[in-house]
């Protein structure tokens, strides 16, 4: 797929994805808002610049694998995939509806390019490790990307997987952490402290890169650097949950609820304002 390299164009794309997410969530009436909105830049960078993939050959064996461990943020992945041409955009409004391929939490059998059905937290990184081992066995050069949430670092199984990556020296594995400091019931450090994440990963022999998860330059350079490092790499992406919608930003209460019609209109207006700003940059 053709890479988008212009930062302005990437920003506009991220803005479009956010608007799609708001429409999807308003229409579905249930789901998660803060997480997907916060990840718009990460998904834009992955699908339109970083990933080796081809929507016309979704299961090409040389594609990079993207495992979404925190499956509940799937609306942003669906929006990015539709934008990239994996399925028609009009399908986005079927999110969480009976018979839709866009399940409330992602299901690989409905859309194979989702790679793996996830959303029971703490499982995606382990699956990614199995895929990274398979790539090594088959002497393939693609990368395995895992996106995980900070909240799922509460799970012991996540730490089992982190240890496995060092044992097998998986330099084809990149784990991007959505470090947005919120989880369902509150702020991460109040619910279940996970700091110091950098030191913990380093102690497990991972290379760690910390970035602003809304800055395209930082995202792209971090991943390009990670590809060259001969170790498993963890990219801790600092994210503002609910980014772009003033009343959702940094509010854990928006982890697991959706905007009503009025709130959605307000959100779209704010995003349109932001879009105009980007246009004038």
């Amino acid at each position, binding site marked *: 797929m053709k890479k988008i390299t212009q930062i302005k164009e990437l920003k506009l794309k991220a803005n479009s994805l956010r608007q799609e997410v708001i429409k999807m969530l308003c229409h579905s009436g249930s789901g998660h808002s803060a997480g997907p909105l916060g990840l718009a830049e990460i998904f834009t960078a992955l699908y339109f610049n970083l990933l080796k993939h081809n929507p016309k050959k979704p299961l090409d064996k040389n594609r990079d694998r993207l495992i979404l461990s925190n499956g509940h943020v799937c609306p942003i992945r669906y929006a990015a995939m539709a934008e990239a041409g994996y399925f028609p955009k009009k399908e986005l409004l079927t999110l969480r509806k009976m018979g839709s391929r866009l399940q409330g939490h992602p*299901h*690989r*059998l409905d859309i194979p390019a989702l*790679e*793996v*059905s*996830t*959303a*029971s937290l*703490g*499982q*995606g*990184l*382990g*699956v*990614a*490790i*199995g*895929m*990274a*081992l*398979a*790539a090594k*066995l*088959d002497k393939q050069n693609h990368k395995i990307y895992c996106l995980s949430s900070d909240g799922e670092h509460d799970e*012991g*199984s996540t730490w*089992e*997987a982190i*240890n*496995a990556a060092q*044992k*097998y020296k998986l330099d084809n594995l990149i784990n991007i952490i959505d470090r947005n400091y919120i989880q369902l019931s509150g702020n991460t450090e109040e619910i279940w402290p996970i700091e110091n994440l950098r030191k913990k990963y380093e102690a497990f022999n991972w290379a760690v890169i910390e970035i602003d998860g809304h800055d395209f330059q930082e995202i792209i350079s971090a991943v390009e650097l990670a590809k060259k490092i001969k170790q498993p790499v963890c990219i801790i992406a600092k994210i503002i949950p609910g980014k772009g919608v003033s009343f959702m930003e940094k509010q854990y209460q928006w982890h697991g609820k959706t905007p009503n019609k009025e709130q959605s209109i307000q959100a779209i207006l704010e995003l349109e304002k932001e879009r105009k700003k980007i246009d004038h940059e």
Partner: protein
Amino acid sequence: MNELKSTREGYGQALLELGKNKKVVALSADLTESNQVTKFAERYPQRFFQCGVAEQNMITMATGLALENKIPFASSFGVFLPMRCLDQIRISVCYNQANVKMVATHCGLMTGEDGATHQALEDVAALRSIPGITIIEPIDYYQAIKATKAAAKLKGPVYLRLHRAKTEPITGPLTTFKIGQAQLLQKGEKVTIIGSGPVLKEAFKLNSFLNFKPEIINCHTIKPLDQKIIKSIKKNKKVLVLQDHQKIGGLGSAITELVSDQNSIKIKILGMPDKFGESGTIEQLWNKYGFSTRNILKNVKELIE
């Protein structure tokens, strides 16, 4: 008398043979020798993945390997796999229809002296309600070899329920085996005894005490259940189930579900009566918890009275 051998040894032998297929990989959670995976690991070190005492991650790793077209055999004790990683089995393996073979050695009271913590008696109950899983409990060494090879051929999640102790084989190298097809071990009358695993051989001891031969069926595939066993059940209308597993949720429950719309069928299930086990020899434990010849006989008589 045939040489005594365990079902886990059958698994180890079959896994070694399956290693010729480069897609086959093996994982163990620090139980390589106990799971009989050592020979495979020595012969194919690049395709053996030691997972440490971390069963949850072993299952997700196996899922990733399976989704990349490998045929992973992940092994542990039945008390840890499936019990410790049930969520991983439900979502990562079964919801994805991943081609993972889960192998639990040391199931049932047959684990003996290790005591309650290591006697897997709830594993079938835990797994049976998960959609898309195949559950097999071979009766002996030879059947374990065939079950392992058949599992490798079958696309989709499979759970092999195996045992630590060596027992006398009652099938042979040439006995046919097909997943989902129960095996008639003894043609008989008046009562149908159905079971899985080595405990079923206890049923043959009744022949010396009864003036008729009961029908004995080895239902090695607990899920999907062979619907044809209903023919024998309807013929005799009396069923005794033998399972080295909790009475709740095992093969007996599956058979009861199968005949739930049938009138006039009487079923008794011999299994662990909602209790934890304890240390002891197999003979002591089976005697105490219902598998003595005396108790099996008593139940058969109650059924046919």
